[in-house]
Every structure is written in structure tokens, then in C-alpha cells.
């Protein structure tokens, strides 16, 4: 039995939605089963990783008699890939609110992980990140082929995140990457899907230490001057 800790608002909502799908809607029971499915805390990404087979056998088979299709639906809701998705709420941001910060975009299909391909992902999550704060400032529904009306979809997608300096994706094609770079956005391709929170924490660690010069420049030139002088002394 794992401790429930503090569920995020979105995760709590997803679990409630998932419980309603069950033949005998029992929120308490679902919560108990979920906490048996993982040895760690119930976080958005831990819960999203639970599959139907695990649900069926967990907690001495409470859900053993539940139809597989229903369990699939529960899993889809929990991993936020069902039509009844839950998005986190966006916080207000005004230019200048966060000194020495950088605007980044993450390509995602579930609003939990950076797991999106640039040209097919569902959303771009836009964050303003400084070394001590990461604020979700926008969620942009990425344009799809049918919205593009003959225009280059990838150009439109790149323009959607024009205000960002860094873009995290799971993959991006060469020509699309060129279009992104042309707008001054630095694409970063991850080897595997990572939780959004992990990516933000990792970026914050980089910002708190010595960010690479191009990133320091993207944050405003304060840090890059310091770096340039360090560079001179090395030479």
C-alpha cells in the first residue's frame, strides 16, 4: 500500500472520471486499487503508466470480473488519452514577472509527459521557467492538417510557439526542425518520454548552475556577460 500523498488536482479529477466508468462506481475502491498498482506515490505519470492488466490483477483481483473494454477505458482516462481529457490550469504571466527566465514549449499528447512528435502532437504546453519557478502560462492546441488549408502545417506549428526559446519534443523531422530553428527556437529531442515535471526540474537545475551561453542569451544577457568574461580568462 502506497501513501496517497497529495494528488494533483488534474489527477484527482481523472481518477473521479475513471471511477464513473466502472460498473459499480466506487471512487474509494479505485483509489485503493491504484495505490496497490504502484510502489511509489500516485503522481500523474505513475498513474498514467498503469496498464489494464495490472488493474485487473491488483488488490487480489477486485476488478477481475470487470470487462476488459471498461478497464481499457479507465486506463485511457487515467493516462489522459481519452476524449474526456483533463488539462492543468494556466497561470497568468506578464512580461517581466520573472526575471532571468526562459519561455519553453513542450510537445505533448497527454499533458503529463513530453511525448509528442512536433508535427503530430496534440498540445504545446508553454512554460515560463526560471531557476526557482516554473509557471504553466499557456496550453496551445497544435494546428492539424485539416486546419492548415494548403499551408505548411509545420510552419504554422512553429509560428504557434514563436515566443518560446526552447522546444522539447520526442521527435522532429529535419525540415521541420529547420523551420523551428529559423524562428529562433531551439529544438531539444528527448530519447524517451519524460514527465513534464521532470523536464522542468532538470531545466531549472541547468538554469541554477551555469547555463550554456546560448541559453543564457535566451534568458536575457545578464548571465552571458559573466560567461564571456569567464571565457576570456580561459583563453
Amino acid at each position: 500500500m502506497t501513501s496517497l500523498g497529495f494528488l494533483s488536482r488534474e489527477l484527482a479529477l481523472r481518477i473521479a472520471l475513471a471511477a464513473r466508468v466502472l460498473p459499480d462506481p466506487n471512487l474509494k475502491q479505485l483509489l485503493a486499487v491504484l495505490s496497490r498498482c504502484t510502489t511509489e506515490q500516485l503522481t500523474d505519470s505513475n498513474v498514467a503508466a498503469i496498464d489494464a492488466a495490472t488493474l485487473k490483477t491488483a488488490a487480489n483481483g477486485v476488478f477481475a470480473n470487470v470487462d476488459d473494454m471498461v478497464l481499457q477505458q479507465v486506463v485511457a482516462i487515467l493516462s489522459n488519452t481519452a476524449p474526456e481529457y483533463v488539462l492543468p490550469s494556466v497561470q497568468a504571466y506578464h512580461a517581466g514577472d520573472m526575471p532571468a527566465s526562459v519561455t519553453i514549449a513542450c510537445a505533448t499528447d497527454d499533458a503529463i509527459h513530453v511525448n509528442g512528435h512536433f508535427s503530430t502532437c496534440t498540445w504545446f504546453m508553454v512554460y515560463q521557467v526560471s531557476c526557482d519557478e516554473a509557471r504553466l502560462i499557456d496550453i496551445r492546441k497544435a494546428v492539424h492538417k485539416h486546419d492548415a488549408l494548403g499551408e505548411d502545417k509545420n510552419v504554422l506549428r512553429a509560428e504557434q510557439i514563436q515566443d518560446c526559446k526552447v522546444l522539447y519534443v520526442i521527435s522532429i523531422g529535419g525540415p521541420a526542425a529547420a523551420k523551428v530553428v529559423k524562428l529562433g527556437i531551439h529544438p531539444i529531442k528527448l530519447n524517451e518520454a519524460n514527465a513534464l515535471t521532470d523536464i522542468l526540474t532538470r531545466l531549472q537545475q541547468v538554469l541554477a548552475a551555469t547555463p550554456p551561453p546560448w541559453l543564457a542569451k535566451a534568458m536575457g544577457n545578464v548571465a552571458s556577460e559573466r560567461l564571456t568574461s569567464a571565457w576570456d580568462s580561459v583563453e
Partner: protein
Amino acid sequence: MALYIVEADCISCGDCEPVCPTNSITEGAIVFKIDKKTCTECEGDFDIPQCVKVCPIDNCILPIPA
């Protein structure tokens, strides 16, 4: 007669290092750097500097002003 890498723009991707015909590009303490003593701007080897050709960032590799 040499090129240099603008350190505020270099993203340390390393694409330029293997294409240099004179092996003048190395990874420095912060970003990649070009040895100005050996850089030929690819004259005699190629029509255009190969590092400039492969660099994904515009205006990141520039000629050292005279």
C-alpha cells in the same frame, strides 16, 4: 584568414568538428572553438567553409574581422 565561433550563439552540437578539413575545430571549455592559426576558411579544399555550411545556427561562425 580564419573563422571564429560566436560563443553566445553556439549550441555545442558538434556538427562542425568532423567536417573541418584542417581539424581546426575542438570543443573548448564552454563551446566549440576554431584554431585561428590553422583555419584556412576551407580555401583549397572546398568552395565554402564546411563548418558554416553544416552549422544549424545563422551567423554563429563568422570571419575574424581584419
